[in-house]
């Protein structure tokens, strides 16, 4: 190694997959928002409320991790536009399969935000109906789940987002992740298969990081789903990094969305920081799936805002300039700027939404903290009976 050799262990090399300007332009679906449309602003306002709630949720747990109250946390910060907008495109009865950065989708799917924060929206959510049932209880149980409490969805047996929640009476079918990345893509396609088999028009959506698109299950599931025309939408959250691995070391194609061509299905790349753009792409994909025309592969381009998990040093691999760029493309800032520029929100109202979301999260998490821990001697069956 010479002095000039740039390939030293700790040098920060530019990630060829990183945004050159903002986002690679060729396949990007831009925001479809007709300028000045009140209806469109209303949708954005609705998504914004959930995005803010998700952001406050993550900020709270990040803080708890730093104080040692939590053993592990994977942050969803930066993914909110993609996850909230995706969950806005489905309804009760559809299935949702999530990973470790999808709190936005979970909160949007589970909760009626107006029931939790009365008046936060001037009317019921309009893009999609809120999930029926008890939002407050669900939110509390979700916090318990994060904290390993008895009242969580796995009674302390599984960590954070590794759980399922089915409430059949409300059409809530949420399947969480196992750690093995890629493994849940076929399972998600399987829920779509059940819908198809039962002759319903329900659809399944599933998220995957760009890193886990390299797994065999990505290919196997998308291929079968395409051959069988399953009502299945796979959303790649491309935050350009997988732990410490940049996209240049993950795949050699220009755009992951192009892989759709190999399956004979539509593939769309979208600016994943733009909730309205994601919503439009997802609504098209969901309509296609409901009509029986099969899967869509969506690639949402995101920025990496946090380390792989809180407290690791993986963010040091991301070049400073790149990181700064992601910071400038914060999906919440983008949504808030649009709402302010459009004359929908004042800065004061934005602050009020943030404060109300933050205190709801703090109160709920505090309440969960005071709830019982699981009985460590309880037996748990490995078989269903």
């Amino acid at each position, binding site marked *: 190694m010479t002095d000039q050799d740039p390939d030293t262990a700790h040098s920060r090399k530019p990630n060829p997959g990183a945004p050159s300007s903002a986002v690679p332009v060729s396949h990007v679906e831009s925001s479809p928002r007709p300028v000045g449309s009140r209806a469109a602003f209303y949708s954005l306002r609705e998504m914004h409320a959930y995005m803010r709630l998700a952001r406050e949720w993550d900020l709270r747990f990040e803080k708890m991790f730093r104080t040692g109250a939590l053993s592990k946390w994977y942050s969803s910060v930066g993914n909110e536009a993609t996850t909230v907008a995706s969950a806005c495109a489905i309804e009760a009865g559809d*299935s949702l399969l999530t990973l470790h950065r999808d709190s936005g989708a979970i909160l949007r799917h589970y909760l009626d935000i107006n029931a939790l924060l009365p008046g936060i929206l001037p009317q019921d959510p309009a893009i999609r109906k809120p999930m029926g049932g008890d939002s407050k209880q669900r939110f509390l149980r979700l916090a318990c789940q994060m904290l390993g409490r008895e009242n969580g*969805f*796995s009674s302390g*047996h*599984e960590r954070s987002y*590794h*759980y*399922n929640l*089915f409430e059949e009476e409300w059409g809530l*079918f949420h*399947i*969480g992740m*196992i750690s*093995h990345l890629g*493994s*849940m*893509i*076929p*399972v*998600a*396609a*399987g*829920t*779509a*298969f*059940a*819908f198809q*088999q*039962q002759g319903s028009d329900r659809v*399944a959506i599933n998220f995957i990081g760009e890193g886990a698109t390299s797994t*065999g*299950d990505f*290919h*196997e*599931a998308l*291929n*079968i*789903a395409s*051959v*069988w025309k399953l009502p299945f939408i796979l959303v790649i959250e491309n935050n350009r990094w997988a732990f410490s691995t940049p996209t240049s070391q993950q795949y050699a194609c220009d755009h992951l969305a192009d892989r759709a061509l190999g399956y004979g299905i539509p593939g769309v790349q979208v600016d994943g920081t733009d909730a309205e753009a994601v919503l439009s792409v997802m609504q098209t994909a969901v309509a296609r799936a409901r009509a029986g025309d099969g899967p869509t592969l969506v690639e949402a381009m995101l920025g990496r805002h946090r380390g792989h998990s809180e407290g690791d040093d993986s963010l040091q691999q991301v070049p400073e300039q790149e990181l700064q760029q992601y910071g400038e493309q914060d999906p919440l800032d983008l949504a808030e700027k649009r709402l302010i520029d459009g004359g929908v929100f004042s800065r004061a109202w934005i602050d009020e939404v943030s404060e109300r979301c933050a205190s709801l999260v703090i109160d709920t998490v505090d309440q969960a903290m005071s709830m019982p821990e699981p009985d460590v001697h309880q037996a*748990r*069956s*490995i*078989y*269903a*009976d």
Partner: protein
Amino acid sequence: MQTDTSTESDDTLYVDAISAALADEMRADPDVVLMGQDIAGHGGAFKITRGFLEEFGDQRVRNTPIAESGTIGIAIGSSMLGIKPVVEMQFADFVSCGFNQIVNVAAKMYWRTKHPVPLVIRLPGGGGMGAGAFHSQNIENWFLHTPGLKVVSPAYSGDAYRLLRAAIRDPNPVLYFEHKFLYRRERSPLQTAPIPDRILGESSILRSGTDITTVSWGWMTHRTLEAAEILSQEGIEVEVIDLPVLSPLDHRGIIASVEKTQRAAIIHEATCTGGFGAEIAARICDEAIWSLDAPVRRITYPDSPPPFHKGLEASRIPSPERICSELRQLLEV
């Protein structure tokens, strides 16, 4: 398509018992769906689903791409929302490509989430036909080591029929090992009623004896019975226990028998080291060591992949002669 088997029937080939169980359960339950490679028009590599496409249609008899992991994963997801999938591995050996879905997704799902995965995977396994290293293996132990799975290993047509129907009704993931050597050789009456709706541990004494207890399953049960017949003529009475279900294991029957005979051997076609014989031997030692007059013996395949040449292969699979000689040695201790 086979005839309706809802009445007690005469001797049925093992392969036909499996077909009949699938067909009868599909007739009884419209949620049952078959998935596998070449199972539709072609009827599968072993023709188990011949005629099914015509009777049940292509929605319920699904040819899949060559994608074991994807197929099993799809079966898992659908089983959680009301479908009862039965997935055919073309050969048991190929299940390794779907291993992660079975051991990490299916096996742990109920424990993790309390959501059942009522899934059956059929695995045509075993050797004796010169099919080589990748079409002859006995791999039940890969799954016996995983909590949350049930594992079935019928030796007889009757058990094959009854246990396949029960496996489809069971709310847990069941791996159903069917032995290819028995497909067109084993023939016995079906037991059509009553069909249980769960797979429970089962051990059955096929021949009672006073001198040695043997434990076996699948093809090896037939060979052990042959050996017991030969030894009986020498005045050695072997108690032959068959395990139609390996997991959950009914070890109580084994322990009771060993306490009586005071000698035990486990015969399996799978390789030796870390095999299920070791587990059974350990259970016997745990619970009946003071009854034993001799060490517990394992009579198994050597630790090698299955060779292609029929003679080479035959030399490795426990034969009735080898079982006899090893059991005789056990009596000499």
